[in-house]
C-alpha cells in the first residue's frame, strides 16, 4: 500500500493536469448537451454517453458535428 502511494505521488505531476483537463472537458460538454437539447442528429442520451465515455474525441465530435444551432429550432 505504501508503495502504491509513493507511485501515485511520483506520477501526480502528470495525472493531476490530465484528470483536470479530461474531466473538465467531459463535464463542460455534458452540461452543454443538457442545456442545449437541439442536435443535428441523435438524441440526448446518445450524446451524453458519447461525451462522457469517449475521451476527448467524444466532445470534439459533439461540438463539430452534433451541436445544433440555437436559432434554427423550427426544423
Amino acid at each position, binding site marked *: 500500500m505504501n508503495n502504491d502511494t509513493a507511485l501515485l505521488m511520483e*506520477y501526480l*505531476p*502528470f495525472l493531476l493536469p*490530465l484528470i483536470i483537463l479530461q474531466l473538465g472537458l467531459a463535464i*463542460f460538454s455534458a452540461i452543454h448537451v443538457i442545456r442545449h437539447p437541439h442536435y443535428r442528429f441523435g438524441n440526448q442520451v446518445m450524446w451524453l454517453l458519447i461525451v462522457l465515455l469517449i475521451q*476527448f474525441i467524444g466532445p*470534439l465530435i459533439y*461540438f463539430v458535428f452534433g451541436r445544433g444551432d440555437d436559432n434554427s429550432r423550427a426544423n
Partner: protein
Amino acid sequence: MNQWFGFLKKEWFESVKTYKLLLVIVIFSILGILNPFTAKITPTLFEQFMPEGTFVNLPEPTALDSWLQFYKNVPQMGLIVFILLFSTMMSKELEKGTLVILLTKGLHRSTVITAKFFMALCYWTLAIALSFTITYAYTAYYWDQSQLQHLLFAVSCLYVFGILLLAVTLWGNTLFATPYGGTLVTLLVVIAFFIAAIFPKSASWNPLELLTATTQLLTGELTPSDLWIPYIITLFAAILVVLLTMTHFKRKLL
C-alpha cells in the same frame, strides 16, 4: 486589406463561439502531457502487470522515448483531431448560404478562402506550439535532452505537413460543400502518400517522409539537408492547393 481583416475577425469570433479555441487548447494540452507520461510509466506498468517471477529487462526511459511518443501521438491523434475540427470551415457557410450576403455586398471571393486558411493556420500554430512546449517542459524536467538533435527542425516538418493537409481539407470542403467531403479528400490524399511510400525511391520527394524521418532526425541519423526536397515540395503543394481552391471557389455557384 480592411475587408480581409474584417473577415478574419469574423472567423475568429466564429471559432471562439463554436468552441474551437477551447477544444484545441484542451486537446493539445492533453496530448502534450500524455507523451512524457507514457514514456515514463511504461516500464512501471510492465513491472506491475507481469506475473510474479518474470524478469523483463527494460532500459530506463530517456528523453528520446518521450519525443518518440510526441511524434507518434501528434501526427496521428493530433492531425485527426485538427482535420475533424476544421473539416466544416467552408461547408457550414455554403450549406447555410450565409456567404451569399457578404459576397453580394462586394467581398472578394479570394478573401474568403485566404482568411479562412489563415485562421486555420493560426490554430495549427497554436496547437503545435502548445503541445511542443508542454512536452518540452516535462521532458526537460525529467530527463537530459542534450543528445537530441534538430528538435525544432523535426517539429517544423510536422508543422509543414499539417499545413498541406489543412490546404487539402479546405479544397475538398469547397469542392464538395459537405462536412464529410473535406475529410474524405484528405483521407484519400494521405492514403495516396502511403501507397507512394511503398516504393523506396519516393522517399526523396514524398511529403510523408517529413513524418517518418523525425525519429532519425532526433537521433542524428539524418540531417535537415536530407529533407529539404520533401520540405519544399510540401510547402509549394500547400500554396498551390490554396491557389487552386481560390480559382475553384471563384467559379463556384452559390
